[in-house]
């Protein structure tokens, strides 16, 4: 992996891009895959009898297989293509949640969830007069497993947790969480375990079999791919779930008074898909898989360790506060911080003037920020194209442009 794999850095030579958690830059192979498909192979999928169409269908379904392998899912038919993780979570809440949640049931999420994995459950709970329970965090930004046990009960129908926090970077112990759900959640109707892997997919290997989850979602655009999303669900659940969007492709038969749904996954893929971008997602999965998790993790951990070390020095000077685990092994991808006496917007703008791209906001996690006692933080996040030099330039700019304002 090299910065030169990514064309955007040819165009913007001075750009220090530290906002991969918002969206990842795309390697040439992904851009080429999309372009090539549109230029040379574009045709409808699943319906055509002519060679171009059959070829497009084959390529499309091959991506389904690739993604299944990427998340260690047993069956490609459990992979549904959506627009992004937000849409995937909304589909679970609406199609599955609406059918199975009743008045008095509980839905459990954590304090660190992104709004995409909070608001759909909030809306569902209100609609069904169910209770939304929020598992609190430990002071160093981990899920409080003791609190999780307390919040689970016999009426728990859905537990939805992020694999990795997009603010704290915390890597959550999904297997421990699943064990707790089995032990303390409803026995008769086993609670369904949803994993939001939007932030983790680019940084750590996923295995739905290891996690023991029932649903998993992620976004292609964070995985160095185009803007398509994935929803994985266990086959039995998907087969019994009502569809979300209805229309063409998701039916087997349509009569005047009734319709028969198509089989999974097509039941959940109404209308014409964004084929070109799905092909691009396949190329992104290939790109990441070719590099290999050992290299990716080693690369990012090294950058994170440098960042944590330099921030620790700023914390000792009383200038900065870093949120989330202090240990580089317990976190990945992101680091959120505040600077004493300097508003996050000002930190972000000052860094932007030096060509450094960071994110300053609540990062779609207002609930988490309230519990941290701040309204907004500044976040840096790493991608495959980041180098040690990027981290150094970030800290130089922080020191020269931002810290002068930190002294009152």
């Amino acid at each position: 992996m090299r910065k030169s794999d990514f064309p955007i850095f040819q165009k913007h030579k001075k750009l220090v891009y530290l906002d991969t958690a918002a969206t990842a830059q795309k390697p040439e192979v992904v851009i080429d895959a999309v372009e090539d498909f549109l230029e040379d192979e574009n045709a409808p999928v699943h319906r055509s009898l002519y060679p171009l169409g059959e070829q497009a269908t084959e390529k499309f379904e091959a991506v389904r297989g690739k993604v299944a392998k990427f998340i260690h899912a047993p069956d490609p038919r459990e992979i549904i293509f959506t627009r992004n993780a937000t849409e995937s979570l909304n589909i679970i809440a609406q199609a599955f949640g609406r059918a199975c949640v009743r008045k008095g049931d509980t839905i459990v999420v954590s304090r660190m969830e992104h709004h995409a994995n909070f608001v759909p459950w909030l809306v569902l709970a209100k609609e069904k007069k169910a209770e939304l329970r929020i598992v609190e965090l430990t002071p160093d930004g981990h899920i409080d497993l003791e609190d999780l046990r307390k919040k689970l009960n016999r009426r728990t129908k859905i537990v939805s947790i992020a694999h990795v926090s997009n603010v704290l970077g915390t890597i959550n112990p999904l297997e421990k969480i699943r064990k707790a759900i089995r032990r303390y959640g409803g026995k008769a109707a086993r609670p369904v375990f949803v994993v939001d892997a939007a932030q983790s997919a680019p940084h750590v290997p996923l295995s739905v079999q290891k996690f023991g989850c029932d649903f998993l979602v992620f976004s292609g655009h964070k995985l160095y791919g185009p803007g398509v999303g994935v929803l994985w669900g266990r086959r039995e659940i998907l087969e019994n779930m009502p569809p979300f969007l209805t229309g063409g492709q998701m039916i087997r038969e349509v009569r005047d008074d009734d319709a028969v749904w198509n089989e999974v996954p097509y039941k959940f893929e109404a209308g014409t898909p964004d084929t070109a971008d799905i092909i691009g997602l396949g190329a992104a999965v290939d790109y990441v898989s070719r590099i290999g998790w050992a290299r990716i993790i080693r690369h990012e951990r090294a950058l994170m360790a440098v960042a944590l070390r330099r921030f620790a020095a700023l914390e000792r000077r009383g200038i900065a506060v870093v949120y989330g685990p202090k240990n580089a092994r317990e976190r990945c991808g992101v680091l959120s911080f505040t600077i004493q006496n300097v508003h996050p917007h000002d930190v972000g703008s000052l860094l932007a003037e030096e060509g450094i791209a960071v994110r300053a906001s609540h990062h779609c996690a207002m609930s988490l920020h309230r519990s941290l006692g701040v309204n907004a933080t500044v976040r840096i996040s790493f991608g495959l194209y980041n180098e040690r030099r990027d981290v150094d330039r970030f800290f130089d700019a922080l020191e020269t442009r931002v810290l002068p304002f930190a002294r009152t």
Partner: protein
Amino acid sequence: MKHDLYRQNLLEDARRPRHFGRMANPDEVLEAANPVCGDELTIFLKFDKAKRKIEKASFDGRGCMVMFASTTRLLDYLSGKSVSWLQRLTPKKVLAVFNAPLTPSRQECALMPLKALDELKKRIKRGGRVKDK
């Protein structure tokens, strides 16, 4: 294009703002907040006896440098201005008073004082009046 936002006296106006402080007996206490970033602003206004002209203006709150500087600069203008001047105050004018290059994402910060004044402006437009304290 380098935005010299922070080099144009922004620091001065943000760190040592003019008109900063709660007012003793204001006629109007107008609030605005931006939940996205936590900025909070209160503008205090005192009018003349006829309630037609602003006699005094001050502000309190917490927020980013852009919000502080913009509010300071706008309040430089407020004293002595009529209610009808207030009604004619637009986002474009507020940004012109701010007079520093702003990316679209920071414009909301600069327009916070206008957001606070909007409550009074809407009330007057509906036929209401300046409050009598």
